[in-house]
Each structure stands twice: as C-alpha cells, then as structure tokens.
C-alpha cells in the first residue's frame, strides 16, 4: 500500500514497484485513509510518506502497528529529516528510503524488508 499526498510520488512508486513485480493493493493520501485502507486491504508492505497533512505519518505508523504488530512499513522522507525517520523506526517502521527516490535503492530496501520477515513478492 502506497501512502503519499503527492500524486507524482504515488505514480512513481507505483511504476517502480509494479515494474519489479509487486502488486499495489491500495493507496492513501493521508494518515487516516492509510489506517482505514490498511485494515481493508491487508498489504504485506506499506510505503509511508512522513510529511502529510492531517494525521501525520508517525501517528499513522503507530496506529497501524497497534492494530497489526507484524506490519511492514517503509517510510519515505526527504533528506535532513533524520529525526522523524528515527521516530518512525522507533514506532515500528522497518526501514526508510530518502527522496529523491532512486529505483534500485527503493527496490533493494523493499526486498530487504520483505526478506527479513519472510515474504518473497509482496502485496504492497
């Protein structure tokens, strides 16, 4: 599941992930949607943008982890926001990718997170 308030980001991520063989089961443009959609589509992986309006990324991560402690969440953030990334990691995110997104970097992080929790190709 892709969570990002920017259409371009969502499209780019979708393009990259689908090209690599993953299936996108849902999208969300803010935190609340993310939580709702997570329950609905139960993805194997979530990419979460941290700078979203409304319910922020961190809060969304917290709630999703609360509802499903095995949730795999990768946060996407701009450089220079390491505090927020750290926060996210402490709240249960598994890894992170920095913007601007590099295709191979994103895919390697996705594979890493899936591997470590035992899934090959994900519904994300």
């Amino acid at each position, binding site marked *: 599941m892709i969570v990002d308030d*920017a*259409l*371009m980001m969502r*499209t780019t991520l979708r393009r990259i992930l689908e090209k690599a063989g993953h299936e996108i089961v849902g999208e969300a443009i803010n935190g609340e949607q993310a939580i709702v959609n997570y329950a609905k589509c139960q993805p194997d992986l979530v990419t979460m943008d941290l700078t979203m309006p409304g319910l922020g990324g961190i809060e969304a991560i917290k709630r999703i982890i609360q509802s499903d402690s095995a949730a795999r969440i990768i946060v996407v953030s701009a450089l220079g926001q*390491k*505090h927020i*990334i*750290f926060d996210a*990691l*402490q709240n249960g995110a*598994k*890894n*992170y990718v920095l913007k601007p997104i590099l295709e191979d970097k994103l895919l390697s992080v996705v594979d*890493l997170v899936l591997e*470590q929790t035992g899934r090959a190709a994900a519904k994300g």
Partner: protein
Amino acid sequence: MTYLFEPAIRLMNRLKYVYKFAVIGLLIVLQAAVLIYMLVSELNKNIDFAVRERVGVQYVQALTNVLNEAQAYRSLHYDYSRGNNSRREEVLSQQAKVDAALATAVEIDKQAAGQMDITWKLEMLQKDWVAQKQAALQFDVGRAQVAFDLDSRWLGEVIDLMQHVGYESKLAMDSDADTSYLADSVLRKMPGLEDNLNTAQGLALQLQDESLSPDNRNRLLQVVGQVRSSLEQVDRNAQLVFRHNDMIITKLKTLHTNLVDSIPIFAWNVEQKTIRQQGGLPIPQELLTAAGNQAIQNTIVMHTEELKVIDQLLVIRIGQYLQYRNIIVFFTGGILLLVSYLFLGFDMSVRRAVYQLDNVMACAGTGDLNVRGTIYSRDEMGSLTNAINNTLDSLQTMYEEVQLSHSRMEAWNQELEQKVEERTASLKNLLDHAGQGFLSFGEDLSVRGEYSAECVAIFNRAITGVAVPALIYPEDRDQQVFLEAVFKKILSEENELLRETYLSLLPEEIMIDSSYIGVAYKLIDSITTPAQRKIMLVLTDLTVQKTMEDQVQAERDILAMVVYVVTHSADFFAAVDQYINFCQEGMPNLLHEEKPAGDILAALFRTVHTFKGTFGQLRLGCVMAKLHEMEGLLEHIRSNEIADLDHRQLANKLSALTPAVMTAWLDEDLKILKEKLGEDFFQQENMLVIDNARLLEIEEKVQRMLPVAECSLLLPDLRRLRYKPIKELLQSYSGYVVALAERNEKAVYPFDIVEGDTLVDPLRYDDFIKSLGHVFRNSIVHGLESFEERVETGKAEIGRITCAAIENQPGITIIISDDGRGMDPAHILDIAVKKGICSPESIKNMQEKEIIQLIFADGFSGAENVNELAGRGVGLSAVRAELEKLGGSAIINTTLGKGTEFQFILPFTQPEKCEPYSILQLAKPLVSAAENILNNEVGLQLNTCTYSEGRVGGKLKLRKVTTFLDIKGIATGRMVLSADQEVVEQLVNNRFGQADIESTHDKKLENILSQYANQIFQHAIKTLPNREASFTAEALVSILAEAASAKYPQAETPTWVLDTGVGKITLSLIYKTMLSKTINNKGEINGGTNYDC
C-alpha cells in the same frame, strides 16, 4: 558407653586446662585430706577413748584400792563392832588408809575431771565416808551387823562409783572383746567377788561364836554361795578372756588359777565351819581367816593385775592407734603430697605443652611459621608437638614454595604487563599513524580511554570520558539529543537489520572547527560479554579532501565553462563583445536618452536580464552573479522609486555602475579562461581572426564602394563568413531547456530544431534568438505543469517542447510550442491588473488575442518568486522588443490545458540567400592552368581530358606520384594531383622548376610534382579576377605510391584525367559541400574532413 561420660566430657570441654587441673586436683586433695582427717580424727577419738579408759583404769585402780582398804576396814570395823576393841587402832589406821586411798582417788579425779563428770559422786562418797568415819566407832556389839551393812552399803557406793567410772571412761564399753571381758571382770565381777569374799570373811568371823544362829549360818552359807557364783562368773569371764590372748594368759592365768583354787578352799572351809554342827569339819578360825585372806589377797592381786593388764592392753592399743595414726598420716599424707606433686607436675607439663602448642599455632595462624614447639614430654602431647612441628615445617616449606611461585608469578605478571604495554603502545602507534581518528564508546556514550592520536588533532583536546553526542555536535543541542537516542537504540537493538537502519541515520559528515570530518560507524561486540556492545567511530579529516573536491568542482566548473566557451567560442566572443559594447556605449547611451525613466529602466532591465541569461548559458558564473545583483538593484529601484525619478536622477542612481566597473565583472572569468586556454585562444595562428564588427565594416565598405556586380560576388562570401543556419543558433536551446526543466522538477524531451537550414546573419538575429530563451523559460516555468497535474490530466509526464524555424517567402518563422497548460486569458487579465499594466477599465473590451498579447508587456510576470532566471517580468517584454527591432511579429496560439504555441515571424530585409562559394569555382582555372603548363612549359601534348564527377565517398585512385595541395581561403578544399611516373619524369627532364640534384630520384619526382602543383595553382588563381587574396595554398604534400588510393568519405571528388602522351595526370578537387560547419563568426576556416591516405 561413652555417652555415660558425656556430661563429664562436656564439662571438661568447657573448662580451660588450669581449671580442669584445679578442679580435679582440688577434688583429689580435698578428698584425700578429708579422708585423712576423718581417719585421724577417728583414730584420735579412739586414742582419746583409750586414754580416757586408762584414766578410768587409774581411777578404778584407785577406787579398787579404796575398795580394798574399805573392805578391810569393814572387816575390821565389824570385828571391832563385835566387841573386839583391840582392833580400834587398826580400824583407825585402816580409816587412814582408806582416806589415803580416797585422797589418791580425788587426785586422779582432779586429773580426770575434764573427761569424766564424776566429781560430784566422789564428793558424795567422801561425804558419806566422812559420815561413816564419824559414826564408825560408835557402833556396839548388837549393831555390828548394821555397821557391817552400812559399810557394805558404802562399799556398794564405791563399787557403784567404780562402775560409774567404768561407764564414764568408756571402759565398760570397750569394743575389744578381751578388754571388755576384763573390764567387766574388773568392774563388776571382781568387785562382786571381792565384796562377797570380804563379806564372807567378815561374817565368817561370826563363826568364832559357836552359838551362831542358824539364820546367820544360813546367811553365811548364802554369802558363800554368792562367792562361789561370783567365782563362777569370774571364771567364765576369764575363760573367755583366755581364749586367744597370749599376753593375758601369761599374766593372769597363774593368778587366776590361784584364785580359782583359793576361793573354793575358803568357801569350803566356811561352809564346813558353818555346817559343823551338821557334820562339817572342825575348821579352825585361823585357817578360815587365813584361807579367807589368801583368797582375798589373790582376788586383790588378780584384780590389780587385771587392771594392769587392762591398762597394758590399753597402752598397747593406744600405741597401736598411734602407730596407725602416724602411719596413716605419714603414709597417706606422703602419698597425697606425692600425688599433688605429680599432679601439679602433670598439670604444669600438660599446660606448658598445651600453652606452647596454643602459642605456636597462634603464631602460625598469624603468619609466623618459624615458631616450633619444644618437645617436653614423651607422651601423646610430645608426639602431638612433634607432629605439629612437622606440620609447621611442611607448612613453612609450602609457604616458601608458594612465596617463590608467587614471586615468580609476579615476575611473569610484570613481564606480561610489559608485553601488553608494548603491544598496546605499538597498536596505539599503529592507530595513531593510521591518520584516522578511532574512538569507541559503550552504553554510557562517553569516550573510552583508548583512542587514536588523530582524535586529539581533530578535536583539539583530550577527549577521554567526553560525551560523544556533544563531541559530534558541540553547539546543536537538538542534534545531540537525537544522537543520544539513536546511539542508545543501536546499542540495545537486537534485530540486526533494524540496527543497520539506525546506523544509516547517523551523520556521515560533520563540521568540527571549520574542518570537514567524515564519520564511519562500526558496531563492536564485546569479546567477554556479548551483551555489551560498543560503537566505534572512524573519523577521517576530509577538509583537505573537501577542499580538493571543491577545487575539483571549481575546476570542473571552469572546465565546463572552458569547454562551453571553446565549443561555442563564437557565442562566447560575441557575448563578451556585446557586453563590453553595452557597458561602454550601450548603457551610457541608454541612460542619457531623453525618455521616461521607467522606459529606460525597463530597457536596461531587459538587456541585463538577457545578458545574464546568456552568460549563464555560457557558464560564466562570476559575471552572471554580478549581473544578478545588478538586476536586484534595478528591481528595487523599479518597485520603489521609479515613479519619482526622471532619467537624470536614474542615471545618478546608477552612476556607480561605470563601464569600467561593469567590464571588470568579466575579468574574473576571462582571467580563468585566458589561463586555461592561453592568450592564443584569443588569437590563433594561421587563422584570421576577424571580429564581426570588422567583417560588418568590410561588408559595408564593399557595399558602398564596389559596383553591384562585384558586390554581388563579394558580399555573399563576406556574409557567408558570418552566416549560419538558423537552426544552429537555436540548437543549444534543447540542452538548455532540458536542464531547466530538471531544475524545476519537470521533464521535457530533448528536441531537434525542425528545418532551420536557412542561413542567417547571426548578428542580426542573435539578440532575438537570445531573447527566445525567455520564451522557453516561460514554457518550462509557467507553461509546463508539474508531474502530478500532467498525469492527472492524462498527459505524458515528460513534456514536449518543439522548436521549428520554417523558411517561407516573407522570411523565417520560428515556432516554439509546448504541451503545457496553456494560458488562461482571465488569469492574464488578473495579473495585468495586479501588476498595474493596464487599468481595470481598459480590459473590459479586450479581445482574447489582445489579452494574450498582454504577456509581452513590461512587468508582466506570473511567477511568485524571483530567481536568477525568472520572475522579473522582463523576459517576454524583451522578446517583444527584439521582435520589434527585427520588424517581426508574434502570433500566440494557446489552448487551455493543451499547450501554447508561439509563432515569431521574422521577415528577410535583404536577400539573404546566397550560394556558398565553393572550390568548384576554382576547378576550371586549375584544369586550364594544368593544361597550359603542360603544353607550354613541359611540352606535353594533352590528348584528352576526361572529367568524372567523383561520388561522395568514392575512392581516388592515386598514381605513382601524388601531390596534395590544401586550398584555403573563401572556400576550402584540396587539390590532388596524381601523375604517372613517366609524366613526372618528363617534367623533371624539362627541368621544370628547380630540381635538387643531390636528392634521390624519388625525392626529385616528389619535388617536381609539388612545384608543378603549386604552379598550377598560382596560375589558376591569377586567372581569377580580384581573387588573389582569396585563396591560399597550403600543406603541400607529395608522396610516391603504388596502387594506392585515397578515400574521402564525406567529400565530393570531381576528377579530371589529363591524358598526355606518356602518361596520365589526374587532378581532383576534394571539398565538402557543407562548409558551414567550418566557418564561424570569426571567419576562421579550417579543414574538417577526414583524410585517409
């Protein structure tokens, strides 16, 4: 069985030895002493007893004495009392004897008074005697019996007293059988016997009287009977006594026998006398009395002897007792002393040994192993002491051994420590020289003691124990907190992947005291405690590197600048010149124009903006920055003050910006370029460097001075020097646009200019084309939507911008289009009003086309922010200005949501078209010259001359000798003269030209042909009117070849084959039809073909 002794053992266990011994000793001594005392006292008692008995015996003896005397007295007294007065004196003397005997008794009593309490009785007796004595002589005959009885009674008292004494002196209670019998005899029997005897004796006196009454006779017989019975008793007693005591037997037997013999005789006699009348024998009184006296004497003796014997016995007994007592005392006492002595000795020996052992072990316990116990005794204690000594010996040995090992280990330890120190030092040395700072820290986040020296260099101080986050970010508390949190998480996180993620969050580069420090992080697992982890930092001073990188980057920038300048050198030089021109003339002129200040400012702005863009494109950073500043200043003036200024005041305001100052802005960049490219770049050899202005001058001169016909020949060529296809002028926008798009987070495809082959005068169109940059910029910045919008509206993410330069009859139309969002007239109107470009009233009646044209107005800008490239509202107005200068017009077609298209129509002012002059013009003259020379000077008849086109990319077959002649000038090309050997030899023979005799044959051939080629050329040129300076020959190369060929892949190769009689010469011209590439603004002409020979 031992449990019986438990209490004793326990008690003993609780006591110290002193007490043990004291207790036992005391008990022994006490007990012995008590026993001895008791024995001795018992013995003493017995002795006292015996002594008392002896006293008693003495008393009894005295009393016996008294008794005897008294008995004798009685008899005498009786006799006296019977009428025998002759006896008076005897009675009195007998009384005196009795007194004496009494006195003795009294004496003894005095002595014995302490032991016996008889004195009162004795005194009574005495009193009674005294009474008796007083009455003694007063008895008459009739009262003889009474006197006798009174005496008897007094005798009875004496006997009673004797018995009393016997009791008091314990004589009567003597435990010894013999003695008690004797005592009994002495105290009772004998006195009884004596009494009876004396009674009988006394009474026997009656027998003198023949007329004794029968009663008296009977009484006498009774008394005799009593005597006999008494004697029996005595005898019985004696028998008992005699049983086993030899001493007694010895002493008394005889007497006893006497007694036993004599008394019966007397008794018989008495009896006989008594019973004479009845038939008894006539016994004379004297016999009777004698028998009686004998008997009495025997009795007295016996009695006395018995008393003596008793006394003796007692003495013996006492002696025995004393002996016994002494033995006991001495013996037992002695033993007791001995026992005590031995016991004390035992005590002392034991205690000494025990204390010694105690002491020894105490000393040993405190560490002094030198003490040993002396072996005092040969018993268990001694062996124990021995054993302990041995133990201590071995302990001491062990201790010494331990000490030895200990000291050895100390030594080893020190060695090891030294080794460790050395190792540590060498490691530290290693680390210190590694040039990197190594430090590590654990959970406490403080620097641990061992870190490399480089750290000190980096942080400028010793850093032991310093908190690491504070070290990394000395001033930024937030970052410190962040670091602390991340470090702690890393150290405690078990999941390795998460750890890696956290590690990646840590800063990789930090600034310490204006140095760049690169930081690498390593997690170290502690060897001993896996749970404890440490983080190691590897710090590398990157300042130098960074500086170098910066330098490299600067160099790269410079290089980029240089490359760009070199590859677009024409643009570069043009821009520089333009700029200098502007600074020196353009701006001052502008400022002094009599125009409203606002217009001047606007124009100035536009120009500066364009220059800035141009220099930006040329990568001339310094001047671009300065121009940007200037723009800022102008903007400031425009927005704040322009309304109040007139042009003079404006000029004043800008007076600081003198030409000198502004040209100086270029200096920095130019300096670098000159450095890199050399002065030569600005002036190159073998190339004619003409600047455009010069060429223009020439053009004008030509136009002015030369006749039209010649003009038409010259001008095109001149112009051709400068002209370029318009697409060349526009092509660089492709790259520019793509880059610009990227910077604005958009994307466009690169584009090629459609058509655009028309040759144009760059000078004329330069400004305009430069201003087109604004159009492109606008397309990118305003026209093109963001990715999202594009995707949302279903467009491709990557935008498409096109540029075409179409030639049609009136002129050239440059079409720039984008597939962006188009322009919204309403929006344009809004901005126009906002920016004050037109009043709200005037817009009411505007047509759409008019509205859209508003974008060209001064100050119109839809951008929010001003940056170096956009937003000033200057761009499109600059375009319009340029367009006006060229007399052109613009048409804008825009569709909201689909895109915008700008059409700029640029009319031709003069016939621009002209043919490029090519080398072909030279062909005919060359061939004719060749022919002529051959004919005239060499003497070779030309038979045929065939011409072949020569295809592009064709091969040129070379003959034996070939000369290559490069032609430069208005046109470039190459003449290839290839001749058969025979022909050349012919030339040689004719001494055509100067032949060098010394050179080889081959060389001669080459030389001659070269000269021939040269001559041809010169001739050919001469034939061209007014063209001498136009062409030069260069690079004459001659070669000998066999069956070689030259290939010119991109050139045309028209060839004339001149067939002489002896051989053939071919003359070829190599040239490219497209010469535009090789001609640039400066009029440099260089050959750009690939020659492959």
